[in-house]
């Protein structure tokens, strides 16, 4: 296959070639960035919450008189436990994918000089650790004696369980067991490390902080009331939630069930990530439309070139070129144009990525997206040009003798 004649032909159609290359460059740039956005969104939705989502549901009450919260806890715990299908009921301050309750900045020194980031505290009564299904990777399980009474949102001086991600952030490459950290006048000592525990309302500092959670055992009471964690048989969870609402209307008529937060954890998760999934869907739609339009452009221009060069094709055929030679010609031509477009498109992809990084807290585009984008455009180009190329191959050699 000689490339020289193809270049000579393209030089005659400089403008059209340039336009096609430009279109492919833009498509390549948008494709790489959109794919990157889709993958990061989808990865985000697959986050491991660290709890037994399918077997858990939350019931959140508001509007009750805070003075009666101890009494409320007792009534709700005993009543909800009687609902068939409920395996356990515990008091907790928040659940993954629900509203956040104990969000605070922490420091690794008592004076508060070494700010170490914002984390979420899960405060639950002693049974909640087991009910959540948290997976311990180091240290020991919380004991009943670890649960302290609460004056504030966390105990003054508590043994806590941190996630592996948070431990690695606070004390890289050292054993986190027994290490200490502080929030204001509250002091914490690490008693164990958890595999995962996602923050209630996600990581505000980006996806890397989604696992920055601290589990604190505590005694239910005035400061820990109103949100209940139900461990249920997954198949029965909708009915259990219905029954729970009905039960609460009778045992606590002045309390209002917070419908938004009183759901199974599966539902809460689905709602939490709905916007991400939607955005991924929209991006996917745009990519498809984009590739379609690019393919249509290639088909249009290639058809035009085939029609324009019927006589030349006829001459080549008459001089001994085979059908496959003709097909190869158009495919090589397309390959060259797409190559030019991709070179430009990669630069453009990085430029767009820089722009996105400035405005949307996005990480840098990983390099491996570029060959993926390039390959898909080569594939689209070759497929799109195939039709016109086959039509070109069908031009009979006798065409050489006809005038245009």
């Amino acid at each position: 296959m000689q490339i020289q004649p193809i270049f000579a032909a393209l030089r005659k159609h400089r403008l059209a070639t340039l336009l096609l290359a430009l279109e492919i460059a833009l498509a390549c740039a948008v494709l790489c960035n959109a794919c990157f956005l889709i993958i990061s969104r989808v990865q985000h939705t697959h986050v491991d919450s660290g709890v037994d989502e399918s077997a858990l549901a939350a019931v959140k009450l508001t509007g009750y008189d805070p003075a009666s919260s101890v009494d409320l806890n007792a009534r709700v715990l005993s009543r909800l436990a009687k609902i068939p299908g409920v395996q356990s009921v515990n008091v907790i301050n928040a659940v993954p994918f629900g509203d956040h309750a104990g969000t605070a900045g922490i420091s690794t020194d008592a004076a508060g000089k070494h700010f170490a980031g914002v984390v979420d505290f899960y405060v639950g009564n002693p049974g909640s650790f087991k009910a959540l299904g948290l997976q311990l990777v180091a240290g020991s399980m919380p004991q009943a004696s670890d649960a302290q009474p609460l004056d504030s949102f966390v105990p003054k001086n508590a043994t806590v369980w941190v996630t592996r991600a948070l431990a690695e952030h606070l004390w890289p490459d050292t054993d986190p067991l027994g290490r200490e950290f502080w929030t204001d006048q509250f002091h914490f000592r690490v008693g164990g490390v958890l595999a995962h525990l996602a923050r209630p309302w996600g990581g505000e500092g980006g996806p890397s902080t989604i696992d920055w959670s601290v589990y604190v055992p505590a005694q239910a009471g005035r400061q820990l009331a109103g949100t209940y964690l139900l461990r249920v048989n997954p198949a029965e969870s909708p009915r259990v939630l219905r029954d729970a609402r009905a039960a609460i209307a009778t045992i606590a008529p002045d309390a209002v069930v917070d419908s938004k937060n009183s759901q199974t954890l599966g539902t809460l998760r689905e709602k939490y990530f709905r916007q991400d999934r939607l955005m991924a869907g929209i991006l996917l739609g745009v990519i498809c439309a984009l590739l379609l339009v690019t393919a249509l452009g290639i088909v249009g221009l290639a058809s035009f070139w085939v029609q324009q060069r019927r006589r030349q094709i006829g001459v080549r055929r008459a001089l001994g070129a085979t059908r496959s030679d003709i097909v190869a010609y158009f495919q090589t031509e397309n390959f060259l144009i797409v190559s030019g477009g991709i070179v430009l498109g990669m630069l453009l992809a990085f430029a767009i990525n820089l722009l996105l990084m400035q405005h949307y807290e996005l990480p840098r585009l990983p390099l491996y997206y570029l060959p993926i984008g390039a390959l898909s455009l080569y594939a689209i180009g070759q497929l799109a040009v195939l039709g016109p190329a086959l039509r070109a191959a069908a031009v009979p050699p006798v065409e050489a003798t006809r005038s245009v």
Partner: protein
Amino acid sequence: MFTYYLELAIRSLRRNKVLTTLMVLALGLGIGACITTLTVLKLLSGDPLPQKSAQLFYPQVDPFPMDGYVAGETKPQPTMTYTDAMNLLHARKATHQAVMTTTGAKIAPQQANAHPFYSDGVMTTSDFFGMFDVPFQYGGGWTESDDESRARVVVIADFLNDKLFGGANSVGKTLRINDHDFRIVGVLKHWAPQPRFYSLDLGGRDYGDGDAVFLPLQSARAADMAAGNTNCFDEIKDLKHLETAPCIWLGMWVQLDNSAAVADYKAFLANYARQQIALGRFHRPDTGLPDLMRWLRDEQVVPDDVRLQAGLAFGFLLICVINTVGLLLAKCLRRSQEIGVRRALGATQRTIFAQFMVEAGIVGLAGGLLGLVFAELGLLGIRHQPAEYASLAHLDVSMFALTFVVAIVASLVAGLLPAWRACVLAPAPQLKAS
């Protein structure tokens, strides 16, 4: 002459149906995507009070300590302490002024076996209604003396009135909110500015339905109603005594009628900050007085995703336009001989140019029509999104017109290069070739 070009253009477009369809389809897709995202963007970045927004300003002061302060870079806080809000309110330096925050109002219906429910509430002061031109169906707002005397009065929204009183005049009736009785003094007509500009940073959502109840700030606080977003800059015992706590939780709006009044108010704020520094209450000297639209921009009320979608749609349209340029160019080069003949028969370069531009314009018009269909489909999709603003996404007259403007402009831009190439073709070689 124009009709002749039109006839030529239609004939030429008909001759190559596949190519024409491709062009129109691509352009339609690009325009549809653009109009869909622009409609959402316009909805979200629109002016919530068009007749008044230029006169409304949001004063900002900064009671935070010096830690983390960078002169010239740190912006003043978005909300205020109770002390500062009351000082500025009682100074009465503006035509109208009101302080406000959001709350969750537990409403207990009078009917037997109806369960209590939560609604969005605003705790504010008497000038709120006059300053924002809030329309009333029955009754009106409360007075300044109601504010001072902590009167248990409430203004309710139309939808709450419909729900509780079947839409009848409920002024004078009692509403039980957070286990306290409040007397209804006014019922609003539908009022839901988009975005809900007055409570950005105070808690609650930015778009969607309006608030259900409006209560005098002090009366509501006396009834133990919790404030929305609260941000404390010093140690506090509890969140009950917010009025004296070192916490910011109130927003303030003022109405200033001319630029002289704005300048005066700026000077007043700067002076206030200096005074407070002298008293040892403040440490940072910065103040702010953005107008409504500036405040919306500062707060970046439009979600990132929506801006990203709009950017994406324009990128897509650009690709579609380039695609159309390529195809139009191919078409016009193919007609070199026809152009040669026309030129030889006396057509000027201008007439050839005009002829090709008309052809491009027709493609644009068709693309616009198709784009309108795609945009309607797109907006139908948006209305099924789980977003606060979803139900508001409709194509209005101006966006309808914009669709065609975008379509014609895009197609004419796309047509420029091919038309220019066509008109500069030398006629003689084209005639010779045939």
